[in-house]
């Protein structure tokens, strides 16, 4: 589904010019530049830190990719993350054990996703409007649960899980889990009929419906899964910082969407690859880490993220406009030559 116009005209060139491949190339280039310019960048401690710093964005980017491929979006993920963090803190204070907190919080996350999904599929509301609403609602609920308190006395055992690396590697446990989930998501999206259905829905919901795809059910499930994963990311976030707060992860939805779009997923749906998204996530992470190591202020980091986001939608669109213009000129030239 993904190959575009260039690919059809000139397969070899098209393979190289695909946006997701370009993002991969950029990633390698920035990584190389990082190794060359900063001696702290390459050490395994820093890489482990940079990777675990990305864990929540990376985890949420997986289901978000599936949602955007089928033409929807969920802006409430960071609020679900905050709510799950607040709940974790509140329940821990109330004396629950972690073994009961985790499933409870995950169920709440799934319910948040279910509410989004039902409003989108049953009422036919635009997911953008719905999730702007639930974004405010869930963040509000997070404050209702925990106020402006911070809960921070979690036992070492649990916090370690979020920061320790798999023995002998620089890969944090949370990232190891991400790798497993990414493989599953990648196979699902690119090697199964369900994955093809998602692209079909993104290209034309009506056509997909008439082709017998259960559009609404698939979307509903995707929203539930997104809520579930966002809640899980909330637990990871809480343990990683050792602090449960209602405002945890504020603004993180922007980074997730930036990563997905940077990875070449078309915001209108129907186009994209998971490999591109992972490259996008890593590129944002590497850039952020480099800027941090070079003591570049957070405001410049924000500018870089914003510009990346604008460029990621602008570049492919300009390429399309350029191709359209060229083929129009060619058609005019041919018409005037024959007539």
């Amino acid at each position, binding site marked *: 589904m993904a190959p575009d116009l260039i690919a059809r005209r000139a397969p070899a060139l098209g393979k190289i010019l695909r946006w997701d491949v370009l993002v991969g190339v950029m990633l390698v280039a920035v990584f190389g530049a990082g190794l060359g310019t900063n001696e702290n960048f390459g050490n395994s401690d820093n890489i482990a830190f940079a990777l675990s710093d990305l864990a929540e964005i990376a985890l949420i980017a997986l289901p978000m990719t599936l949602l955007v491929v089928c033409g929807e979006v969920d802006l409430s993920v960071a609020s679900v993350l905050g709510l799950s963090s607040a709940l974790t803190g509140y329940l821990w204070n109330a004396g629950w054990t972690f073994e009961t907190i985790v499933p409870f919080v995950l169920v709440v996350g799934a319910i948040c996703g279910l509410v989004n999904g039902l409003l989108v599929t049953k009422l036919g509301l635009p997911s953008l409007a719905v999730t702007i609403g639930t974004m405010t609602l869930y963040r509000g609920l997070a404050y209702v649960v925990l106020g402006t308190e911070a809960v921070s006395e979690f036992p070492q055992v649990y916090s370690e899980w979020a920061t320790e690396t798999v023995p002998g590697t620089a890969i944090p446990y949370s990232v190891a889990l991400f790798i497993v989930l990414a493989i599953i998501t990648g196979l699902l999206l690119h090697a199964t009929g369900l994955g093809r259905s998602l692209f079909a829905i993104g290209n034309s919901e009506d056509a997909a419906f008439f082709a017998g795809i259960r559009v609404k059910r698939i979307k509903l499930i995707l929203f539930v899964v997104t809520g579930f994963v966002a809640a899980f990311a909330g637990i990871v976030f809480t343990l990683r910082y050792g602090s449960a707060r209602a405002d945890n992860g504020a603004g993180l939805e922007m980074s997730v969407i930036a990563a997905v779009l940077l990875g070449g997923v078309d915001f209108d749906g129907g186009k994209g690859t998971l490999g591109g998204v992972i490259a996008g996530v890593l590129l944002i992470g590497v850039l952020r880490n480099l800027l941090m190591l070079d003591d570049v202020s957070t405001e410049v980091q924000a500018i870089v993220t*914003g510009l990346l986001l604008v460029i990621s939608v602008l570049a492919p*669109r300009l390429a399309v406009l350029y191709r359209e213009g060229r083929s129009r000129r060619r058609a005019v030239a041919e018409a005037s030559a024959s007539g």
Partner: protein
Amino acid sequence: MTAVTASPTATPPTPPAPIQDKDGLLDKVLRARELTIAAALILLVVATTIANPRFLSAQGVEDIFLNASILTLLAVGQTLVVVTRNIDLSVGSVVGLVAFVTGKLVTDGHSIAFAVIVGLVIGVVCGLVNGLLVSFCRVPALVVTLGMLYVIKGIDYYIAEGQQINAANVPQGLLDLGSGGFLGVPYLPVIAVAIMFIVGYYLRAYPSGREFYAIGSNPEAARLAGVPISKRVLTAYVVNGLLAGVAGVLWLSRFGTVVADNAAGWELTVVSAVVVGGVAIVGGVGTVYGAALGALLLTTIGSVLVVLKVNSFWQDALTGLLLLLAISADRLVSLRVARTLRKRSAARHGS
């Protein structure tokens, strides 16, 4: 301009027009969008006043109107954009940037007029950049303005470097604009209402104004009807940017003390106001009056929660809930309208 606006777009090929002329009842239902918000507002005010008579004190009412003014300006601008089936998420950042830069200029001793003009120009430039990217490069508005939100906020923080503007250093003339009034009527609401009526009149009475709705309800039909889509969308963004600039200047004059993250997160409040006010996020439907009522309603709810001593933590949750209720109710009404229309047209063809 002339050749295009002269084309038969005075009655654009949009759903609202055919619905309005046939049936009085449907007309009422559609108009009820604004009526419902107004009714909710009145109900809220009455109930709160019964619970706490001090709610309707002169000071309380003035505060609500002053607070609602800036939000109204932004909601009016956002309506223009949303009606064309686009969105501008960068307005909060623009307000923050304009408020800070204008404040910085006046405290550095520049004249008020110069500082205000620079502020407005910043707003227009931000709108222009958004508009050019969306209309001519045809990139999704959500993504572009989300990116611009970061970029503009980053620039704001970069300029501010942790400083803040103190009311003591802001010239009294500018502060008077925010808190003063003429014959007891404060300036801010007057400015907001005047701008609302100008934009509202333009959208309703001018062919080019109607084209904003045509673009939002059916871009393809609008294109075929000869509507200059890129130009109108660009106009929507530039006007929205300008109004954000005005809002930024008024923010400074109202509060005096300004830090870099002023108005952060306001883009969502503005979108909420617009959506609560009956402007459909998928474009083509809604008025600036509805959006202004939405802004007033959201502001009033904020004050009510304070007056009734509701824990402020509930405020976000209630705002979100209200937003969801508003868009759901709106959707249910329009589904019912569509069903009625279908039934009627089936009956007519059957007879």
